[in-house]
Every structure is written in structure tokens, then in C-alpha cells.
């Protein structure tokens, strides 16, 4: 197994850093351009959620690990922010808590569409961990 782990400040300019970092790591699976875009988008959504919702744009630390096992990429993104009260509701398309700041409410939907597996664990007041998996090269089978 191949693995990377990074920690970075929960600020919006690190959203691009995080997705580029995971994309660079994923290149060893020889993904297609579409697969790379899927991964970048999913990472961007999870990190953006941590910045906006986890830490309420007040900053904090985001931990990201990515691992490759055979043809599968696993990405885990965690924050120690305020957590999610109702995960099921948060994952509904178009649901958003940020009423003043036009969010599309599609973050989790993006992660679900672009990755093969998505799971979200959260404790109010403790933080949120998003785990996503994607098999690379399966479209060519």
C-alpha cells in the first residue's frame, strides 16, 4: 500500500492545494483525465465543506490522507470543527445551511457522483470525517 498524509490550515486557498496534491498522488494509478477531474472535484468539495461548515471560516486544521491499494484510491478528509447535526439531511441535494452565502447545496452530491463510495462520520462539536473511494481504470474493463 502507498500512502500520503498532509495537514493544512482550513483556509479557502488551500482547497486548490489539496486537490492538486491528491491528483498528483493519484497519477501513479495512471488515471484518465476524466478520473483525475472526478478526484479533484470530490476533494475540493470535502475540503470546502470543512473550511465553510466545519470551521465556519474561522480557520482550523484539516487532515487529509490518501492511500492506493491495487487499483483503488481511498481519500480521508477530517476536521475537528463543529460537526454535522443531521448527516442524512446534510447529504440531501440542494440542502444548505449557508442561507446568506449562496451555496449550491450540491457538495455531497458531487462527491457521490464522482466517487464510487462515500461515507461521512460526524459528532456535533467533535468534527467530521469524510471517506471516499474510487477504483481507477474500471471503465476500460
Amino acid at each position: 500500500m502507498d500512502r500520503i498524509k498532509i495537514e493544512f490550515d482550513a483556509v479557502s486557498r488551500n482547497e486548490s492545494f489539496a486537490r492538486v496534491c491528491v491528483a498528483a498522488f493519484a497519477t501513479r494509478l495512471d488515471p484518465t483525465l476524466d478520473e483525475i477531474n472526478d478526484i479533484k472535484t470530490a476533494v475540493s468539495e470535502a475540503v470546502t465543506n470543512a473550511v465553510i461548515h466545519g470551521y465556519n471560516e474561522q480557520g482550523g486544521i484539516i487532515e487529509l490522507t490518501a492511500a492506493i491499494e491495487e487499483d483503488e484510491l481511498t481519500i480521508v478528509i477530517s476536521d475537528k470543527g463543529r460537526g454535522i447535526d443531521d448527516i442524512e439531511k446534510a447529504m440531501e441535494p440542494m440542502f444548505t445551511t449557508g442561507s446568506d452565502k449562496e451555496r449550491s447545496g450540491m457538495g455531497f452530491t458531487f462527491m457521490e457522483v464522482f466517487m464510487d463510495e462515500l461515507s461521512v462520520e460526524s459528532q456535533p462539536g467533535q468534527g467530521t470525517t469524510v471517506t471516499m473511494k474510487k477504483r481507477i481504470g474500471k471503465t476500460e474493463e
Partner: protein
Amino acid sequence: MGRVCTAKRNVIIVRLCGDLDHHVTEQIRNEIDETVANEKINNIAFDFKNVNFMDSSGIGLIMGRYKKIKPMGGEIFVCNLNCQMQRIFGLFGLNGITKRNSKIDMIVNEEER
């Protein structure tokens, strides 16, 4: 991203570039809303020619502008979408609220010369 909006004829052209994520959308949104108010033009054309990446923040930006200008009789146009952008537009239902128009394409693309 520097200033992205230019008003031309009856449309505000928004030249997006690079990655359209949460980090850049807030600034773009403010600039568009200011330009709409100042120029009194309700039609917006988003030029995606130089966009490499868009996540749900970009969708929020477009949906938000749509909700704002639609009641004023405006339209949202999009130009120069690459394959990746077309895919996202299709997957997330943006084709229903945005228009493509060859005349607008011409206005957007001639501006650059």
C-alpha cells in the same frame, strides 16, 4: 483573478479563468452583482474558455445569478464550454437555466481580438 466583468451591448460578459472554486467565487459574485447594478443590464454571459476546473461553488455562482436576474427579465448565457464543463452542466442540471446563443458567442469571442 483580476476584474472579470465587461459590459457590451446588452450583456455583461464574465471572463472566468483558471479554477472556479469557493476561493474565487465570492469575489466574482460581488463583481457581477455590482456590475449588474451599475450598468443596469440583466443579461450575463459566462465565458468558460479559460476555465480548467469547476466544483459546486461554480454551480452556486451561476444558480445564484440566475435567481437574481430572472425576475428582472434577464438571461444567463454560457460560451466556450470544454468537455469537462459540459459534463458538469449536464450532470447538475445547469442546461435548464442557461442558454447558448450564437450571437452571444460572437459578441463574447470578438471582444478578445
